[in-house]
């Protein structure tokens, strides 16, 4: 598999102080990677480094191109910008045109393609986000979630190979959140590489082939399952586990025997089906002597690990 990004010993400091140090990270073509970590962990900073916006110290390679300070200022970045798009955490910074359509067309207009093509791409992106009806509105007067969708559309219209998303599900209502996750996965199936920074642990199993846990440096890296079953790591990184997983931990206290804790609804369905089929057509739950103490332990762990 081809590498899209390769970071070795990368560090970054703002004038106010060091934010990232000793970052080692690889992202492969077509992968879905989630970066998770507490507030101030440096997720946004890292995504901006991947997007070639901030000059970091160390070895940052993208598509076999070394992104050093000189490269960042040169014309080769033009090709890079076509291939990598970043949706910012604050949608306001991405919206500055008089209308939503102008904003969504801003990226493609810098691609040297015909006006018709620009328009076609912008409209396709609007359709993908389900916001065709916002097209003539001022981006300024939209609701938080609408702004978020427009901001995502402004990047999708460029049709980049790599999409970096900074907290894309924030501000979205449950239905829009669901739709966005589906959209992201559709894009992924079309071969896009997708890197998402998020706090939304419930979305992680659905958005990640691989997870990087970040807190100023890379604390761990692995599949969602590896990350969510590493209790020490969860404690250290202040990470919650997905709701579904919690539920099955609760079921375990009631005697449910679960080899592989499900992380998502789909996995839960598979798990329950398997149990019902192998255990004679039903699921057996009961209160045994340790149920209450185990539940207490579990609850205190969920509340403040």
């Amino acid at each position, binding site marked *: 598999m081809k590498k899209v990004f390769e970071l070795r010993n990368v560090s970054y400091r703002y004038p106010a102080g060091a934010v990232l140090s000793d970052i080692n990270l690889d992202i492969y073509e077509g992968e879905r990677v989630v970066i998770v970590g507490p507030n101030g962990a440096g997720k946004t900073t890292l995504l*901006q480094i991947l*997007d070639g*916006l901030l000059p970091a110290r160390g070895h940052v390679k993208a598509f076999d191109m070394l992104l050093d300070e000189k490269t960042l200022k040169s014309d080769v970045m*033009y090709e890079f*910008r*076509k291939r990598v*798009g*970043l949706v*910012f955490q*604050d949608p*306001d*910074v*991405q919206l*500055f*045109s*008089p*209308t939503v359509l*102008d904003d969504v*067309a*801003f*990226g493609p*207009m*810098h*691609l040297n393609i015909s*006006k018709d093509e*620009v*328009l076609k791409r912008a409209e396709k992106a609007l359709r993908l986000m389900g916001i065709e009806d916002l097209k003539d509105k*001022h981006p*300024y*007067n939209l609701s938080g979630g609408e702004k978020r969708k427009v901001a995502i559309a*402004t*990047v999708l219209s*460029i049709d980049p190979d790599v999409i970096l998303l900074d907290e894309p599900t924030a501000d979205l209502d449950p239905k829009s959140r669901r739709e966005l996750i589906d959209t992201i996965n559709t894009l992924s199936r079309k071969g896009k590489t997708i890197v998402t920074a998020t706090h939304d642990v419930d979305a992680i199993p659905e958005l990640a082939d691989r997870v990087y846990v970040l807190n100023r440096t890379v604390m761990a890296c692995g599949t969602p399952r590896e990350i969510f079953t590493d209790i020490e790591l969860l404690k250290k990184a202040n990470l919650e586990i997905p709701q579904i997983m919690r539920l099955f931990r609760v079921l375990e206290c009631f005697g449910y025997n679960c080899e592989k804790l499900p992380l998502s609804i789909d996995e839960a369905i598979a798990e329950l089906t398997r149990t019902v089929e192998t255990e004679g057509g039903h699921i057996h739950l009961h209160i045994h002597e340790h149920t209450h103490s185990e539940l207490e332990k579990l609850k205190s762990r969920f509340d403040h690990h």
Partner: protein
Amino acid sequence: MSRFVEKTVGEVLEYIRSAVFSENYSKEKGLLQKIDARAKLIVILGLIFSAVISRRLEVFITFITLSLILAKASKIPVGYYLTRVLIFIPVFTGVIAIPSLFNIFQPYDGTEILTVVRFNQEVVLPLLKPFSEIAITEEGVIWAAKFVLRVTTAVSLITLLVLTTRWSVLLSAFRSFKLPRVFVVILNLTYRYIFLLTDIVLSMLYSKKSRAIGKEGTIKSWRLNARIVAALFIKSYDMSERVYLAMISRGFDGSFPYMQQSKMVLKDYLFLAGGLLLSLAGAML
């Protein structure tokens, strides 16, 4: 008192926002909306230039009347148009026009028409010539009146342009005059920042209001306001940096290509010719 000021600041900001950022009328099918933005831009700038150098009251009156007629022909309700024009006049003129009414700020001795205060002895202040009374002078009134009218004319005209032209189209009109890119970029970002700034100030005012429990002293309240202003500077700086990064990220290279581009047709040329003739007439009078 400070509550009142805050409420007013909030209202004025809301007003400016709706005034500057509503593009409702630019989508109507009125007279000016049908004219090419480039022709409109030249004519309006020509008329404003003419109003600025003219000394004749008749010129101001004619231009203001003309703006009203054009507004009507462009399907802008006259009441709406007038409030939009008038709201900006005090802001632009107050600082200059009001002092100029009084003798003490004038370089010459004018004909006094109303004495405000009389002192027993001559008062000497830095930068001003010594005076023993403060009075309103006839010359001051005429100067201030002309000044206000001149500004009103200019604002009426520019309001007309802004109301009937979409911002993006206006920017592309600027671009087509081969103005330096950076000028158009700055114009656009200014427009954007006005919005963000009013947005930030408003939300800070509201968040302050929602956090203020009970009555607070005036001094404390102003101290809080000072902090709001400080935070505003930092926020807007931070914001501008990120807006720029977000543009770079999408391939921005200093150019602002625009989608809309149309050809000038006969009616645009006629409008252009008529407008320029009128500007010339106004300037010569």
